[in-house]
């Protein structure tokens, strides 16, 4: 019994987590975080017979943890239990889960032939086929691959970047690398404008969050150990902070590695920082680039994992430094995407139901565009509202002035 398990004993059975669980709200058939997490774990210790397959309905949004007055890591307890007990049936859904979660493999295969892959996955016929065979819901558009990865682009910049006196290390993650290198380029632009150069880790693998969510805990652990090794090397060599632009990668590297995968990241944990936290601190210390006024109204959506990390305050305050920008902070609720969860046919309806409230809020707000720090939230909002959604760093990059 490891340390995570014993944390469930603090649960005093108040039921608050169930009130705030977006899945329980949308899907009355989900037993809820209390039963799946602390109640369930206590019984699973007695006998593994008490593992409930319904735990796979959990999106790992961690809103239960944010709401818990007893500091029980309900989401972690569920994730660890799933890793231990969830049975993988050999069927097309397993293949789908494999494809959706092994982002490095499919990312590196696809980026060299991105235009073709994108055309295929966009085709209505293919979508219908995927829907019927591997149960990827046909309403969902699979993320587009970039023609050429971020790392590939960066190789040409490496030299220039190393000229800066101050340096940071950038954990780019799969989204920037395979889907949207522009965000990475935006980051480099912003940091350079602050006289900071960007390094990449020598090597990097997917943070592992889709692997955890889809039950490939062993692979996730291998990725984690790999990443910790390279981050440790970077810190030992350069003593730089390690920044991430993805709110989920950030949470995973810092919290999920020790709590769910039992991977020790203590040597570099205090070097890990989410980008808006770093940027705001820099701005407050006087290192703020010139920003041209942006006379627009934006709505800010708090990603579930960012809320859990407690770092939304940095993004919000950062946005408030942009001159002329009207910032409407939306009532924090889950978008329903939950990473790979929302792509799956069996989850699609619930995913839409979860996000309905948010889409409604956005509709009512009459903003020019939406800002959020999480890529899957971005895809969800793009797909289901009329608003374009961009990352706060991309907004900063756009309004940099000389």
């Amino acid at each position, binding site marked *: 019994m490891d340390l995570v398990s014993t944390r469930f004993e603090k649960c*005093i059975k*108040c*039921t*608050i987590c*169930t*009130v*705030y669980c977006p899945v*329980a*709200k949308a899907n*009355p*058939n*989900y*037993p809820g975080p209390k039963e799946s997490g602390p109640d369930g774990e206590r019984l699973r210790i007695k006998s593994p017979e008490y593992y409930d397959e319904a735990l796979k309905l959990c999106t790992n949004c961690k809103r239960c*943890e*944010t*709401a*818990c*007055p*007893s*500091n029980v890591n309900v989401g972690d307890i569920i994730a660890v239990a799933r890793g231990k007990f969830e049975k993988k049936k050999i069927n097309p859904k397993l293949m789908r889960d494999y494809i959706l979660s092994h982002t490095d493999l499919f990312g590196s295969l696809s980026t060299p032939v991105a235009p073709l892959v994108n055309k295929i996955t966009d085709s209505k016929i293919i979508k219908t086929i995927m829907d019927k065979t591997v149960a990827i819901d046909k309403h969902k558009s699979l993320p587009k691959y970039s023609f050429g990865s971020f790392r590939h682009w960066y190789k040409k910049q490496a030299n220039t970047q190393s000229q800066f006196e101050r340096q940071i290390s950038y954990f780019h993650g799969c989204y920037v690398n395979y889907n949207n290198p522009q965000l990475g380029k935006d980051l480099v632009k912003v940091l350079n404008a602050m006289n900071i150069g960007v390094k990449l880790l020598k090597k990097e693998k997917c943070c592992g969050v889709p692997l955890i969510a889809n039950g490939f805990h062993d692979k996730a652990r291998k990725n984690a150990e790999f990443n910790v090794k390279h981050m440790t090397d970077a810190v030992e060599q350069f003593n730089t902070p390690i920044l991430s632009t993805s709110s989920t990668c950030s949470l995973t590297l810092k919290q999920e590695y020790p709590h769910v995968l039992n991977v020790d990241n203590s040597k570099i944990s*205090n070097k890990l920082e989410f980008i808006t*936290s770093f940027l*705001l*601190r820099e701005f*407050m210390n006087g290192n703020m680039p010139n920003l041209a006024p942006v006379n627009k109204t934006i709505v800010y959506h708090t990603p579930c994992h960012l*809320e*859990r*990390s*407690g*770092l939304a*305050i940095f993004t*919000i*305050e950062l946005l408030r430094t942009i001159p002329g920008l009207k910032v409407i*902070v939306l*009532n*924090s609720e889950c978008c329903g995407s939950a990473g790979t969860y929302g792509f799956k046919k069996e989850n699609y309806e619930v995913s839409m139901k979860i996000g309905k409230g948010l889409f409604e809020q956005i509709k009512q707000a009459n903003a020019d565009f939406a800002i959020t720090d999480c890529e899957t939230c971005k895809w969800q909002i793009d797909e289901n509202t009329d608003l374009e959604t961009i990352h706060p760093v991309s907004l900063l990059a756009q309004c940099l002035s000389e």
Partner: protein
Amino acid sequence: MKFDSIIIGGGIAGYTAGLRSLEAGLKTAIISNGQSALHFSSGSIDLLSHTPTGKIIRNPKVIFDKFTTEFPAHPYSKVGKGTVFASLKWYKNELTNAGIPLLQQDNGDNHLRITPLGTLKSTWLSQPYVQQLPMRLTQHAIKRIVVVQINDFRDFNAKMVTDNLLQIPEFTDVEISHTNISIDGFSGLKRNACELRSIDIARILTDEDEIKALATKLTAVATPNDLVILPAITGNGMGLKILNKLHSLTHLTFHEVPTMPPSMLGIRLEETMIDLFIKRGGMLLKGDQVTHGDMAEDDGHSGELTLKRIYTRNLETMPLTADNYIFASGSFFNKGLIAHHNKLQEPVFDLDMNNHEERNTWYSPQFFADNSQPFLSLGIKTNHRFNPMLKGKVVNNLFCAGSNLGGYDPIAEGSGSGVAISTAYHAVNQLLKNTKNSHLQHIASDSLA
């Protein structure tokens, strides 16, 4: 990161302080470690039902001065009559304007609410569908009570309510019965419908057809002359709207009663306050916990301390600073106070407590003791301005509010929400007086009723 006012704790005291701070134009942050005890509250505001010695209070305002003389150390006595009633008036208006009307007896008396067990408890402000029985109970005008059992709902039992109400002498002439009603939406669920909590039923009842079906069933079992006791099963942000709809469809008089957790009535208060706080530009740090703070000797006031900055678990290296802080961290449930083997402690700053005695003095021999449980009155020791002390030294820019305060028993007295609201309101007043900003000081003196 700097704020004008930082509030530690997101419960009824914390949000009261937060909303008042925003009203005064202060840049305000609330740090909340999980949702609050409002989730199991009656959704009514308990001002003062009993004295600390167990005597019943009919009208809190009328006896207030006598109370202050007899119990000078009670938080109400320190806050003062003017502020207590101003704060409740303010709270009532805020919630009413936000869509949750809070009603009271015209003459300022307490009123009795029928509890989920069929007993009577007095309170001061209640939500619209909570039937208010007069303190002089023989003057009630009820002829018939119908208690509704939702079939298969395990968290509310109508028969228990009925049989207990039948024992109440003042209801001898009232016809009291219970009846069963089914919620259509229970069938067709894969999950066992008998395991649904009040919040789950509330989600089913957001559907128009479900509401209409329920209305039809209710009309079949009661008439507009009856008092219909219904468990609180509407919510999801629309609790009162749905009750309004049910009322307009049935013309029945409802008495909404909280169930086993969670309480939809209590949730209504919390979600409304959070909503207001965020809409008005407050910064809410959810699910975060203050780990410690830096105190320093106050150069201006010798022998006193000021709180310089606080650190939270999520913000780690980035402390939060404010000129003044309000400490509304709650009681044992919320971990605002913790009980070690033989010591009670306030875990954030290790402030002085009002009790140093051994564990066996913390509890009564009986669970349902007539004189309640001693641990409920244990808490942080404060001066007349609600400043706490650290090893005897006053922390003059930290103001305590709510259930982390020692010196009162929220359950025995029926004063929990009243103390929370009034001490939080008072704390903001103190904070405004304490601020170096003269403009804000001006606002403070205006707001003192």
